[in-house]
C-alpha cells in the first residue's frame, strides 16, 4: 500500500494555491488527508501533484458574524468538537464532528476535506443539510456561496470545479428554543455511518414549529428528509408524532446496499434513527 509518485506543493497563500490548481488540472487538493491519502496508497488516485493547504493560516478560523458562523475549511473535526463557540451556538455540528472516525482521525481530518470528498456515509453532511449550511468556494475568477444541497451532487461528487478551493463552511447560529440531536449507527469496522440522522426541532406551545432533518448513509448523498419535516410541523410534540413522521424518512430514496447493510435494512434504520433524533432534539428544545 504505497502511493505512486507525485509532485508536492505547500502554498502559503490562497492565491498561490489557486495558481497551482489552474496551472495543473491533474493536481489534487490535500486537506487533512484522511480520505485522500488512503486512496492514493491504494493507487486508486494518482494525482500529478498534491497541493497541501495545511500552510494557509487563513483557512483555520472559526468566527461568528451576524448570525452566521464561518468555519474555515481547514478546521479539524477535533477543533469543531472542542470549539466553545460551536458548542454554544451550533451544538449539532459538534455532535456530528465528535462521531467521526476516532481521535486520531478527528485530529487530522478537516471539515472542508470531508465536504469536498462527499462520502455518502460521512457524518457532517447530515448535520450540514439540517443546518441549511453553505459552502464558500474560491477560484481565481472569484468566489461563490453554494447551498450544501447544491454543493453535494452525488456520491463522491460535488459542484467543486478542479480550479476551486473550499474556504469556508457557513452554518447559522442556533436560535433559542431549537433543540438538536445527531443519532447514528456505525459500520463496526470502518466507523462510517450506516445511517446518521441530524435533527433540529423547534417547539411552540407543545407543538412542533420548526423541523429540519438531515440524513446521511442511506442514499448516494446526504439529504433533507422534507417529507418528515412536513409531517412534523404543526403537530404535537409527542412520541406518536415522531414515529409517524419518521416512517417517510427514506421515502423516494434509492437506499444503498453493501456488505454491512442491505437497502431494506438501511431504509428501516433511517426511520428508527430519525425517530430517535427527533425525540432527542425535541427533548432538548423544551
Amino acid at each position: 500500500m504505497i502511493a505512486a509518485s507525485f509532485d508536492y506543493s505547500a502554498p502559503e497563500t490562497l492565491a498561490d494555491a489557486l495558481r497551482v490548481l489552474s496551472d495543473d488540472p491533474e493536481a489534487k487538493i490535500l486537506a487533512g488527508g484522511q480520505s485522500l491519502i488512503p486512496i492514493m496508497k491504494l493507487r486508486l488516485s494518482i494525482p500529478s501533484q498534491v497541493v497541501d493547504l495545511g500552510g494557509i493560516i487563513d483557512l483555520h478560523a472559526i468566527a461568528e458574524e451576524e448570525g452566521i458562523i464561518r468555519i474555515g475549511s481547514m478546521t479539524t473535526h477535533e477543533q469543531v468538537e472542542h470549539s466553545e463557540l460551536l458548542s454554544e451556538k451550533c451544538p449539532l455540528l459538534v455532535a456530528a464532528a465528535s462521531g467521526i472516525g476516532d481521535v486520531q482521525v478527528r485530529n487530522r481530518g478537516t471539515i472542508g476535506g470531508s465536504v469536498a470528498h462527499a462520502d455518502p456515509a460521512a457524518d457532517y453532511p447530515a448535520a450540514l443539510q439540517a443546518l441549511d449550511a453553505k459552502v464558500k468556494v474560491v477560484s481565481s475568477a472569484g468566489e461563490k456561496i453554494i447551498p450544501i444541497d447544491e454543493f453535494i451532487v452525488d456520491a463522491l461528487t460535488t459542484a467543486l470545479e478542479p480550479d476551486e478551493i473550499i474556504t469556508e463552511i457557513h452554518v447559522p447560529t442556533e436560535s433559542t428554543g431549537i433543540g438538536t440531536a445527531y443519532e447514528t449507527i456505525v459500520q463496526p469496522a470502518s466507523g462510517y455511518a450506516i445511517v446518521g440522522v441530524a435533527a433540529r426541532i423547534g417547539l411552540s406551545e407543545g407543538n412542533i414549529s420548526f423541523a429540519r432533518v438531515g440524513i446521511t448513509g442511506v442514499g448516494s448523498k446526504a439529504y433533507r428528509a422534507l417529507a418528515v419535516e412536513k409531517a412534523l410541523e404543526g403537530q404535537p410534540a409527542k412520541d406518536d408524532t415522531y414515529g409517524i413522521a419518521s416512517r417517510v424518512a427514506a421515502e423516494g430514496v434509492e437506499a444503498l446496499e453493501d456488505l454491512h447493510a442491505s437497502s431494506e435494512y438501511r431504509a428501516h434504520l433511517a426511520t428508527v434513527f430519525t425517530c430517535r433524533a427527533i425525540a432527542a432534539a425535541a427533548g432538548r428544545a423544551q
Partner: protein
Amino acid sequence: MQRAIKVTVNGKEYEREVEPRMLLVHFLREELGLTGTHIGCETTVCGACTVMLEGHTVKSCTVLAVQANGKNLETIESVASDGDLHPIQEGFWNEHGLQCGFCTPGMIMSVKQLLGDNPNPSRDEIRHAIEGNLCRCTGYQHIVKSVESAAKAMVQE
C-alpha cells in the same frame, strides 16, 4: 522529486530529503531509525502508527512526511525520560496492558493524549479514546485497567 524537510522529533531537529510520497511512518522508521512506531493496517484504522504531531495524536501512515515539515513530533521513544518510565508505561507494565506489544506504542501515545485532556476518565471514556487503536491480544480489559492505574498515579504525582 526530492523535497527538503526539517522536523523536530523528540526534541531533536532533523533535516532530510524525501520523496513527497513517503509516509511519515516510513520516514520515522527508516530515515530516522525510530522503529518503535509500528505499521499495522495501512488504512487509518489500527493506530499502531500513532504519534504526536504538534501535540495531537495522528496516524502516521496517513500523513506524508512532507506534511510534517517545520513541525514538532513525539514518538514512543520520547515517552520515558532518562530511563525513567512514564506513569502510563508503568501502568501498562503493572496491569499487563500488553501481550505481543505491537500495538502498545501507538496505544500509549493515544493514552497520553487522553490523560492530557481528561486526567480522570471513566471506563467508557477510556474505551472511546482508544477506539482508533486496535489490539488483538488483550481483549482491552487490562488496557483499561492500565489506563486507570496510570491516571491514578499521575493525579497523585
